[in-house]
């Protein structure tokens, strides 16, 4: 009995000492005092040799259990003390979290590039590939092949940038539209042809609403049986997709371009509120597209037979779409590289237009 009581007493004492230990040093002393070579429990274990086997067995079991419980208490207290010491240290390590974070530079994508990708997404889905041509063009590709002969009044309307005549008298121009790519494509591609040709175009004109350089996207579809109905559908679907509207009010007007016959211009309905334009509905009209069925002379100039191949072409301003879609008021600012403008109207690097996620 006494022995049992003694063990209970001892356990109570030891647990109390463990719990009272205020730092890891004190706790270590308690451990040595109990479980060290000369510790109380170790001593009692050594003393068991004097006992008879039965007693030795029961006492041994009791002592082992006691040792286990004390060890457990020591470990728990050790962890608690560690945590407490850490808490004390952390309490001194406070920072002012309202201080600014480290800066990371964030760049932007220009609206022209963004709309380029949007247009490519839409037409890519319809199987249009992206064709390109040089900006410095020959007279033939920019005018002659497009059924604009030398003295045609339409040529004067183009405000062409010219280079100085070469020795043979020929004179290069800066392309006034993306239409030369039509011819270059016909020369190298077997129909059926479906291309768009987005890129820079140039006109010798600079005022409030004109810049000497701007961006257009040309479209060309050639096959055996393409007609005006296909053109209307394509442009209607394009307008809905690019402006992300279920329906866009559109008007198709007869017009004239030397390189198409019949030709048509397309207006979209809009309203003006406080100088901001709202696209798709309303009683005002905005001209956004020129188009038509490719003129037989143009098909011929491209080396194809207009009796076998026919189709449509269109041209639309990329900058203009950007202005209308994103409410950008001034075309000239597109090319001024003002960081304030680039950051305000630009797009995040990861905002890549795609049909699944939406174009904008």
């Amino acid at each position, binding site marked *: 009995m006494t022995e049992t009581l003694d063990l209970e007493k001892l356990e109570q004492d030891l647990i109390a000492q463990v719990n009272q230990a205020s730092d890891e040093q004190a706790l270590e002393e308690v451990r040595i005092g109990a479980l060290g070579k000369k510790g109380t429990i170790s001593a009692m274990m050594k003393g068991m040799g004097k006992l008879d086997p039965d007693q030795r067995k029961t006492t041994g079991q009791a002592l082992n259990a006691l040792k286990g419980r004390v060890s457990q208490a020591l470990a728990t207290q050790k962890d608690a003390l560690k945590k407490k010491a850490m808490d004390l240290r952390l309490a001194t390590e406070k920072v002012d979290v309202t201080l600014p974070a480290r800066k990371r*530079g964030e*760049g932007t*994508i220009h609206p022209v*590039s963004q709309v380029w990708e949007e247009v490519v997404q839409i037409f890519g889905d319809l*199987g249009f590939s992206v064709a390109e041509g040089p900006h410095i063009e020959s007279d033939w590709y920019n005018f002659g092949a497009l059924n604009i002969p030398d003295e045609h009044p339409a040529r004067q309307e183009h405000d062409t940038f010219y280079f100085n005549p070469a020795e043979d008298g020929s004179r290069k121009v800066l392309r006034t539209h993306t239409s030369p790519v039509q011819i270059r494509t016909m020369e190298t591609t077997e129909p059926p042809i479906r291309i768009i040709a987005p890129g820079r175009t140039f006109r010798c004109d600079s005022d409030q609403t004109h810049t000497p350089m701007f961006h257009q996207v040309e479209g060309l579809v050639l096959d055996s049986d393409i007609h005006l109905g296909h053109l209307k559908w394509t442009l209607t679907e394009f307008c809905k997709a690019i402006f992300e509207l279920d329906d866009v009010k559109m008007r198709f007007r007869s017009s004239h371009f030397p390189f198409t016959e019949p030709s048509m211009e397309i207006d979209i309905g809009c309203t003006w509120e406080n100088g901001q334009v709202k696209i798709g509905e309303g009683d005002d009209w905005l001209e956004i597209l020129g188009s038509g069925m490719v003129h037989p002379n143009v098909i011929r100039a491209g080396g194809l037979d207009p009796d076998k191949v026919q189709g449509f072409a269109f041209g639309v301003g990329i900058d203009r779409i950007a202005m209308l879609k994103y409410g950008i008021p001034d075309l000239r600012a*597109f090319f001024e590289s003002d960081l304030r403008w680039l950051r305000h109207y630009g797009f995040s*690097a990861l905002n890549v237009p795609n049909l699944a996620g939406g174009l904008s």
Partner: protein
Amino acid sequence: MKFTLSWLKEYLDTDASLDEICTALNDTGLEVEGIENMAEVLKDFSVAKVIKARQHPDADRLRVCDVETKDGMVQVVCGAPNARTGLVGIFAGPGTHVPGTGVDLQTGVIRGVESAGMLCSERELMISEDHDGIIDFDKDIAVGTSAAEALGLDDPIIDIAITPNRPDALGIYGVARDLAAKGLGTLKPMSIEPVEGSFDSPITVSLNFSDGDTKPCPHFMGRFFKGIKNGPSPDWMQRRLRAVGLRPISALVDITNYVTIAYARPLHVFDAAKVSGNIQVRFANEGESLVALDGKTYKLDPTMTVVADDNSAESLGGIMGGEATGCLEDTTDVFLECAYFDPIRTATTGRKLNIQSDARYRFERGIDPTYLNKGVDIATALILEICGGDVSYKTEAGQTPDVKKSYFLRGERVKTLGGLDVELTKQAEILNSLGFETTDKDDGLECAVPTWRPDINGEADLVEEVCRIVGLDNVPEVALPRFNEIAVPVLTVLQKRMLATRRKLATCGLCEAVTWSFLPEEQAKMFGGGKPEVKLANPISVELSDMRPSLLPNLISAVGRNVARGTLDVGLFEVGQTYLGDKPEDETLRACGVRRGNMISRAWNEQARSVDCFDAKADAISALKEAGAPVQSLQVVQGAPEWFHPGRSGTFQLGPKNQLGWFGEIHPYVLEKMGVKGPLVGFEIILNNIPIGKQKSAARPALNVSDLMSVKRDFAFVVSKDTPAGKIEKAAKGADKSLITDVAIFDVFVGDSIGADNKSIAFEITLQPKAKTLTDEEIEAVCAKVISKVEKATGGNLRG
């Protein structure tokens, strides 16, 4: 071109409203650019009469008027000096918006006297600048008559844009024809009674071209009028001419202008008394000049067609008359010219001399070459009616050129090209109403083109005629068949590089700019350009004179502009074309970025750091990698083109013949010339020069990694100062290509302790065992190999 509704109705019998007419014009391709409808603007204004005007009791300059208006008697206080009893003027009641002042009228009390409206001046109605007094008709007009009617402004003005293919629509009659074809009414037949004439013209005409070819003016008709009186033209004519923007001059001149606008038939009148001898049409002589009706002297050359008398050129054919033979108020004898001038020559001459005129505009687009006789008849009738006098027989030279054209329109072509189902009889009806003579043939129509339509040159043009009259809105939309059910990729390698590079550089913190393709000559030359073939002949300004040889200069200028606005830390990039020559292959797609100011800004927890060469290098490598360049095998060599700092710049290359781009500090001299303050670093890479990699499968090679702990060892070598670090790195790596997975330079030291011509470079290598942990001996063996390799490659020594 402008015309008024009533003028149009002279040729078109119609009940259509202004709106319907404008919609039809737009549909048919005669785009309405503006409508000026004063009847609408002035709808709340009407004629009123001042029954009694008396002095205001408290103001010397004001009068109190009892005014009879369409709504009864009202009292108006008026400050106009001409307000008087009996005045008939224009009244506006309370609530009316006054266009000239922008004010909405209210009943008010002026110096104690109530005033319920106002009597208006012309300026208040925005019909002129006159504000000396209120409108005073000086005659009785029924009270309540609309202001627009009373002022003769009730005729809406329509302004349409005529595309260059439609010279016939440069006359109102032609516009009426389109509208009639569209179903908006009936085209009235021309009802001109030809006048026979009673004597031979004392002036004869001849075509006298040096080469005998009369193409510049194949037909010329004239007529002599004597005893005429050239005063002002009648009110109705003046009103119409003013409405379309022409200033009335005298009856004779106004008549020629009137016929030009009405029928697209330009005419000219010579004062016969000032013509010496006879009229001949010829090329101008070398050195000849002409004072034209605009008062300017033009130097002519033998490519230009002139109408001359026996002495000299008196008129530029189809463009403008001469001052010497112009008609004045006292003109009594007149020679009328009605001729056909070649469009191309007219255009060329007009452009050379830079003369714009209504005549040139029409001749260069092509007037109806068969309309000379009718034009003479129309003008004769008007001259005799307005100016009186006697008229001669017609005189003429040359003949109507043969412009007969006919094309076959296949019955199904409107459907297969225009997408429109139109009965063949309906197609014929439309074409007939436009003046085509159609003949039914098997499965189609043979269509003779009217002489006023030089733009019709084939079947497609006939299709367009039918489509534009039926209306393009009526063409049913048909879906374009899909090539693939699920879209397949369409971009080329270069296009993908362009997109990837852009997005990558934006993630590096640079903002994308789009700059001009042009720049000033001085900058073109500084950046390796300035060749004569890429210099614009007609630049918009000297600042935009040459095509850019590099993207750098325009970005550097853009940095300068931003700095001038107070943004000191700037990072910009552009992906775009550069032009080293005028051939397609001289045009390359490049990516370029510049940074200026601090790379790391001053902050509470950061030291500020200026941009340096290695920021540009990092940007360039990011871009190259994203564009698909083999960055592992890319060589970086010291030096770059001359617009870079000679010591702080480098070139990326795949062997000396394929340079992919450059990076570094921009040469301070260049910056100084451009007026931009540095430090400024930049890079430019040529996306075209990146080799196209082998078509790789989408599948990646198996991942082969070891879980064994990697081992790191440090080395430092003393080498001569000009030894490139890249050489050391390469040598170290080469010591054991499979075991050494990384070599990282962490220190470069220069100091007297190692000799003034030397530097110390320290690096860490990472050894990655694959199969089993490395023994000390194995590690030592690799290290020894590294040392010998580096020493051999650089001639340096391991630092003790």
